[in-house]
């Protein structure tokens, strides 16, 4: 007969693997947002595993069987919930509207057994202190509140100001810990040769770079191990905008200085062209 502690070690390892596999099969949802079913299954699976591992007199395989059954049923519920909307409403709950058109729906609030205090607490967590600011609010099945503020209370966006903002792609981290990350470099549409040239331009060596990122415009920003060294931040785009403005001003001066009518007209036309280009480019060149 093996000593008890050996059995405990063995069972612990077996159940760790089993729990790991179960959570893998059930997916990320099991860890982040628990629906009712996953909540119950999670608790039960955990306690079964704990019981079996320490309870020496019990049969390990009975515990494993119970664990597998719970895992399988949860998996089945998840599967059916994806297939059928009705089933998912039943198993995982529906969201309830609690504020509509700026008015609290007392009936729905009562149905979800929330008091006014609890509702105001949830609103305060979202930095809302006045009911009047809310246009629409929904209690999600997981118990959190989603709020749509009235238009006038929403944060101002460039769209509200009718500003045209360029779309930017996600920056790619191309150097990590002094090593080139070839995969992100390819995502950025660049090669090693390009990277070495850019590093030369910044006058830094690859092994001194802790982190290097390429932004949407193909500009490289680096963070060095040696924090005393100052690296110029990319300023090509603002500089280009300034140069364009200078050229535009120069062209206007030329048009005033010359006496030749034909050239005057030519300078003026080109100054306008450059001005139009500046207007078109400035969203891309600012910042």
């Amino acid at each position, binding site marked *: 007969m093996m000593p008890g502690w050996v059995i405990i070690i063995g069972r612990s390892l077996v159940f760790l693997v089993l729990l790991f596999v179960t959570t893998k099969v059930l997916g990320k949802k099991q860890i982040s947002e628990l629906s009712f079913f996953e909540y119950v299954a999670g608790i039960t699976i955990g306690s079964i595993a704990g019981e079996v591992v320490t309870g020496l007199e019990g049969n390990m395989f009975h515990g494993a069987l119970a664990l597998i059954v719970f895992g399988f049923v949860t998996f089945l519920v998840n599967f059916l919930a994806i297939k059928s909307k009705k089933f998912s409403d039943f198993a995982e709950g529906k969201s309830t509207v609690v504020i509509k058109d700026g008015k609290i729906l007392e009936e729905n609030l009562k149905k979800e057994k929330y008091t006014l205090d609890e509702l105001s607490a949830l609103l305060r967590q979202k930095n809302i202190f006045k009911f009047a600011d809310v246009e629409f609010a929904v209690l999600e099945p997981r118990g959190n509140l989603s709020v749509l503020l009235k238009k006038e209370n929403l944060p101002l966006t460039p769209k509200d100001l009718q500003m045209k903002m*360029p*779309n*930017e*792609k996600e920056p790619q981290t191309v150097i990590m810990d002094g090593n080139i990350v070839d995969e992100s470099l390819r995502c*950025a*549409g660049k090669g090693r040769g390009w990277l070495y040239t850019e590093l030369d331009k910044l006058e830094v060596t690859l092994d001194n770079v802790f982190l290097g990122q390429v932004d*949407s*415009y*193909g*500009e490289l920003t680096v963070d060095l191990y040696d924090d005393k060294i100052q690296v110029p931040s990319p300023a*090509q*785009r603002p500089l*280009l905008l300034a*140069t*364009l403005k*200078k*050229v535009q001003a*120069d*062209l206007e001066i*030329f048009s005033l*200085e*010359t006496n030749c009518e034909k*050239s005057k007209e*030519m300078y003026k*036309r*080109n100054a306008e*062209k*450059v001005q*139009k*280009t500046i207007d*078109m*480019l400035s969203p*891309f060149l600012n910042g």
Partner: protein
Amino acid sequence: MTIASNVKQCLSTIKGIESQLASFALNSLDSEAQVIFNQAMLTVGEVKKDLQYRVLELERNEPQYKGS
């Protein structure tokens, strides 16, 4: 500083702008940015042509400025 040398200076600045726009057009990841930069490059190229012509004209009319 003469007019001719000022215009020449402006012309070389424009050449610099054109090449930088070309490099941005090639290096940008967003397709809309690529199009805009390319378009700007072409417009600047037109301005460059006009100025080049004007520089030649100035040099012909006032040969003393040639090469300055």
